[in-house]
């Protein structure tokens, strides 16, 4: 019996960095890191050299100078004397607005079209295929300009609403005006409003809105409690108490009460001077961008939805029919909830695409972040480096936030596999 001996102790040789698998990965990483840092340093030194030759040192001070230009669609207070930073912020909110509207509409359209593509109705299924192929295969920029051109050319200008015998008239009992400058819809007004609250001295948030939201969400929460109680009773006794009217009341009544207390009424748009005044003005640049992005993205979402539905095995449908569910019930209660798990990942990437594509707003003059910070501000101040870096950082954080939120949601709805 021999005692175990330690293996001969190797001395470290330089060549081991390359040939020894224990060290090799380290070597590769260090080389890669050094290469990357060298490249980065090279770019930075070039940049500094070039900028000093141009006499434009990196300086973000321009953000705090007056912008000098006006923006038509502003969700927060802004005028031409506000700073470039604030202009960028107005643009950012506009980007978020069109992205949110676009995602919502694209999802609705996409689901409807995706389901209809599988319709038993031959004509409808074909039409939806035509829709999907037509929108998917033409650049979205072209769709944006085309929708804008259609809006401008086919809608009546405000002057057609004027005179004794106008050639155009308002819709829905004189409450909505569709013009080639955009759509004017009634706005909610409060005769006994609570005023605004200033946040950080930068933004005003309407207290009315906050009050309504509190009432609404309080109602929804209360209704959830009622539902839970009903569930418990059902589990215990097998009978489900009828609660829908209580729940409906809990949601609607508090909100209604708050609205009445605030003196809610609608302000209708009216033709005054050159334009319609009053009401909410959805500019045609917003509508063109919104519609084009939604229609384009809906085609992709429809494909994802279709693929998701086809991925659910036919047995599920048959089982649902066997249980006596109707066709729409089968779709809504059995197929779509399961398909959703397949659909959500591609849906996330479509939302991201839509948000990024909203930067094409510049083609129709919608003042999003690319139009303000990456457009007029960059152009008037000549600070390309600073503006573009800031622009990229903003888009990057929007994208990362969207994917973080959606991934979290995806994880939540995922089947727990055992």
């Amino acid at each position, binding site marked *: 019996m021999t005692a175990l001996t330690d293996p001969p102790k190797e001395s470290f040789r330089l060549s081991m960095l390359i040939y020894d698998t224990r060290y090799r990965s380290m070597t590769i990483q260090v080389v890669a890191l050094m290469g990357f840092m060298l490249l980065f340093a090279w770019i930075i030194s070039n940049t500094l050299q070039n900028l000093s030759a141009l006499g434009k040192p990196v300086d973000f001070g321009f953000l705090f100078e007056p912008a000098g230009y006006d923006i038509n669609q502003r969700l927060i207070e802004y005028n031409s004397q506000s700073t470039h930073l604030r202009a960028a912020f107005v643009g950012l909110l506009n980007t978020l607005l069109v992205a949110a509207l676009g995602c919502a509409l694209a999802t609705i359209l996409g689901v409807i079209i995706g389901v209809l593509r599988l319709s038993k109705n031959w004509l409808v299924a074909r039409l939806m295929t035509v829709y999907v192929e037509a929108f998917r295969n033409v650049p979205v920029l072209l769709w944006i300009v085309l929708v804008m051109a259609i809006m401008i050319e086919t809608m009546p200008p405000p002057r057609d609403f004027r005179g004794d015998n106008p050639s155009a008239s308002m819709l829905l009992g004189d409450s909505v005006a569709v013009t080639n400058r955009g759509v004017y819809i009634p706005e909610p007004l409060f005769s006994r409003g609570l005023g605004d609250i200033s946040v950080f001295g930068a933004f005003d948030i309407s207290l009315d809105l906050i009050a309504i939201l509190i009432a609404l969400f309080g109602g929804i929460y209360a209704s959830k409690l009622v539902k839970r109680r009903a569930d418990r009773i059902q589990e215990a006794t097998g009978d489900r108490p009828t609660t829908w009217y209580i729940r409906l009341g809990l949601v609607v009544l508090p909100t209604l009460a708050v609205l009445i207390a605030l003196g809610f009424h609608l302000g209708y748009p009216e033709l005054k001077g050159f334009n319609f005044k009053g009401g909410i003005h959805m500019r045609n640049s917003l509508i063109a961008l919104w519609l084009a992005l939604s229609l384009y993205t809906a085609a992709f979402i429809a494909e994802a939805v279709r693929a998701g539905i086809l991925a659910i095995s036919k047995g599920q449908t048959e089982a649902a029919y066997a249980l006596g569910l109707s066709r729409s019930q089968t779709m809504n209660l059995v197929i779509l909830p399961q398909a959703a798990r397949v659909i959500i990942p591609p849906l996330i990437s479509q939302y991201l695409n839509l948000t990024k594509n909203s930067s094409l707003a510049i083609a129709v003059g919608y003042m999003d972040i690319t139009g303000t910070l990456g457009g007029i501000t960059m152009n008037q101040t000549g600070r390309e480096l600073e503006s573009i870096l800031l622009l990229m950082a903003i*888009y990057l954080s929007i994208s990362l936030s969207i994917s973080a939120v959606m991934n979290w949601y995806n994880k939540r709805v995922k089947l727990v596999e055992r």
Partner: protein
Amino acid sequence: MTQAAFVRTEMVPEQAPPITSSGVIGWMRKNLFDGWMNSLLTVVSLVAVGALLYEILPWIFRSSWTAGSLNECREQIKEAYGPDASGACWAVIRERYAQLTFGFYPSELYWRPILAFILMLGAMAPVLFSNLPRKLLWFSGLYPFIAAWLLWGGSVWGPLSALAGFIIGFALLLAITPRFGAILGVIAAVLGPIIWWTLLSGTVIDVLDSIIPIALEPVKSRNFGGFMLSITIGVTGIVASLPIGIVLALGRQSDLLIVKSLCVGFIEFIRGVPLITLLFVASTLLNIFLPPGTDFDIIVRVMIMVTLFSAAYMAEVIRGGLAALPRGQYEAADALGLDYWKAQRLIIMPQALKISIPGIVGTFIGLFKDTTLVMIIGLMDPLGLSTAIRANQEWNGIVWELYGFIALVFWIFCFSMSRYSMYLERKLQTENH
């Protein structure tokens, strides 16, 4: 035993189905008017399609093909179809289709882009259709250099020396790897060509040029325009991004933390920002990032940024391909004692790339459509040209004809490519089962 009153001894002959469930009527009942909901949908769709065609068709066909300006168009149409008629002025397409296709490329040299395009179809064929002889892949490999020479012209030695760089790299890889190991081989294969391109090739080209001058008339890339520009940018982006994408995908899958995070960082950064910001970088910042005095022209700069852009998407496509390979392939490669590079080159990549082709085609379609964005930085792609054409006195005020034509051409390209990709997907599915 009671006798049955009637027992049929033979089968009743099969009868034709009732008229309501066969033939055209039956088909319509089953597919169009099955229940009130479907009937309603059918009727609504029919009305919508009818209304759309009623509006558009007269406009398309009450057109003028021969006029020399928009006003002339309007007069011709009024003359032919009455004073209230309005129709399309396709004359603008007739007059400008060459410009929309080739931009400002010299018209006597149109054969070069056309030839490059035809050769491109030839070069793609062996990649796209696997039943063609594999030898043709050599031509696909050479094609980028031929195309560059045809499009940009100049001395034939330029593209050849670029090609020589790759050959040098490959030769160094083969020569050094067996003796000094894969890492030194890769390093040499990267450094060798760079030294060749930066230091030596210029002189060699000059010398060869003076001995055997073979040259095409050079064309500046700023003369590229129209669909030719879109295709050139798109194809360059895809071809050049493929190797970068492979490297990034491998890096993202690797166990090496730093390499992995560098790759993930790059991919997520590029995928997180819109292409338009990268194009802004190309048009305003790229020259600032490079050493003073460097000046690529704008189209080359755009190509660089587009390549980086599509490399990130390509990496994700290839990563999908890698993930789709069964684990057994990796294990089998390990079991055979292949090292990492050999395993990748001989076992993993050929299969992963094959699975990825539909995804790559999809990326190309997306990229091709996205090339229209270069209009925003002032390049003359079809959309940019449409603006320039509208600035011409004769055609000022024309809208639908140009947009319609451009949309149609894009649609034809993208639709056929997406059909091809679907065919491929189906084929791959059946092959794997």
